[in-house]
């Protein structure tokens, strides 16, 4: 049973939000639909401690701003990730610090509480360190666009909606961010590095 997102028989997000303007408790359903995936996304960016605050703030803000939700948008996912991205912005330095720690040491403070296996993907460490380094160096807006696409599975249009920028902006940010990543991973053929790191 998936709790993330409405199924065909359920009300769409816009009608839930419209209803929650008169029946506030209906908003709890919006939480149940999206909080799990948003929590995972924010945790991947900021680690579990900050994620709890950010997710709680995200839904509180969304609840308080529900009167301003554009009811012509049936799907509330971009709106919620947009609010979450904003809140993540307040932890920018923390995010970069965590990425740099991973780049420097190969140990990831974000995932350590989720991995109890001592053998966790040691061989992939080199790639992870380079990726973390590249992510840390990206401009914040580029990192936001890149990770919405890579980690939250957003298309360009959805990402543009979430970030409240034109779709062309998302496209160019993404393209530049990907170039940076490729360079960091080893120039023209990142695959060789990846394979080497995984098997070597």
């Amino acid at each position, binding site marked *: 049973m998936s709790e*993330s997102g409405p199924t065909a028989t359920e*009300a769409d997000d816009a009608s839930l939000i419209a209803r929650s303007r008169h029946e506030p408790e209906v*908003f709890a359903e919006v939480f149940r639909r999206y909080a799990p995936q948003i929590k995972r996304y924010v945790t991947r960016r900021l680690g579990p401690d900050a994620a709890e605050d950010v*997710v709680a703030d995200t839904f509180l803000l969304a609840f*308080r701003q529900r009167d301003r939700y554009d009811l012509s948008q049936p799907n509330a996912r971009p709106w919620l990730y947009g609010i979450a991205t904003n809140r993540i912005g307040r932890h920018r330095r923390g995010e970069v610090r965590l990425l740099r720690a991973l780049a420097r040491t190969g140990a990831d403070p974000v*995932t350590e509480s989720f991995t109890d296996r001592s053998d966790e993907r040691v061989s992939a460490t080199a790639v992870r360190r380079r990726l973390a380094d590249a992510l840390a160096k990206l401009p914040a807006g580029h990192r936001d666009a890149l990770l919405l696409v890579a*980690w939250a599975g957003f298309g360009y249009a959805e990402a543009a909606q979430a970030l409240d920028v034109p779709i062309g902006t998302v496209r160019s940010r993404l393209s530049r961010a990907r170039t940076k990543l490729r360079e960091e991973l080893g120039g023209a053929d990142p695959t060789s590095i990846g394979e080497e790191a995984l098997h070597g």
Partner: protein
Amino acid sequence: MDEMAQLNLLRAEVPEPDLPGLRAEEERLMAAIAEPTGSGPARRTSRRRVFVRVGVAGGLAAAAVAAAVAVSLDSGPRPALPAPPPSAVAPVAVIRTLDHAAEAALRRPEPHPRPGQFLVVRSRSLEEVDSDSARYLSDTRRTVWLPVAGDATGGVIEEQVLAPKAYPGWPIPPEARTEQGAHGPDRLADFDGRAEYLRNDYAYLSRLPTDTAGMRRHLYVGAKRGAEGDRDAWQRVGGMLTEAYLPAAQRAALFRAAATIPGAEAVASAQDAAGRAGVAVAMTDPEAGTRQEYIFDRHTYLYLGARTVIVDPAKARGTKGGVTESTAQLSVRVSDTAPRIKKN
């Protein structure tokens, strides 16, 4: 593997939490939702005598047997099985809660009591006691042994009467303390004057329909017309859940049928008589000035208990938000025997 695929693997081991893992976040949202400053019309509530007592001769009559049964027992013949009113589209939160509750009922291990055995139900109950000049809440821990075959007159009760609690807005009178202590084992009831359709013994409940429409018809048998009938039906839901064991199939049907009763509303947070918090579905009685709530565990959606809350202080003669009645269903087990009744 290209850079996007590599990026996908980064921190991929971070799991998506389930809802219990989001409790802290959910509680903060629920607190905001519950704030009275929330937009929209104020939540409605009501007061109405929900509990009818099964007759008990002598002794503890007042606080003894609360069978949580609807009141509409007006005498007089009624046409058999009139069609119930059309279903209403309930708020999403009501449907969701009751749907989860139905699924939870079906997942639960089910006792299969045999005739000759007893269902042993432990519960906690806060009930209103009033006299001419005083009102208070009697707080009791109850254990009842209900015969699997037969009605409450074959049952046994043991009670622990706890310190009385205040009826919202009223002082606790001195006489309220005189009942405190252990009572029983006593006969549960000397007579049971309920209409057939209000029975809540296992033999009867296990023969009720297991489909939503059939259960809905049962809820409306003998009910009045209009909103009052909807409230009757709503109360009857509680009658089947309080100090009774409703088999899983009927229980699931009951929750689904309850979701079709017009006027059902969602309550973000409620506490049962044992202090357990959960979410509730409710119906307001504007004439009584109260709201009757059925409370479910926020995560497992198992039924916890019921309570009645004052929404209109003038009508209910008490303070707004005060709880005038509540129950908590704590456990059910099967036993071959019941305690021997004390001779007076």
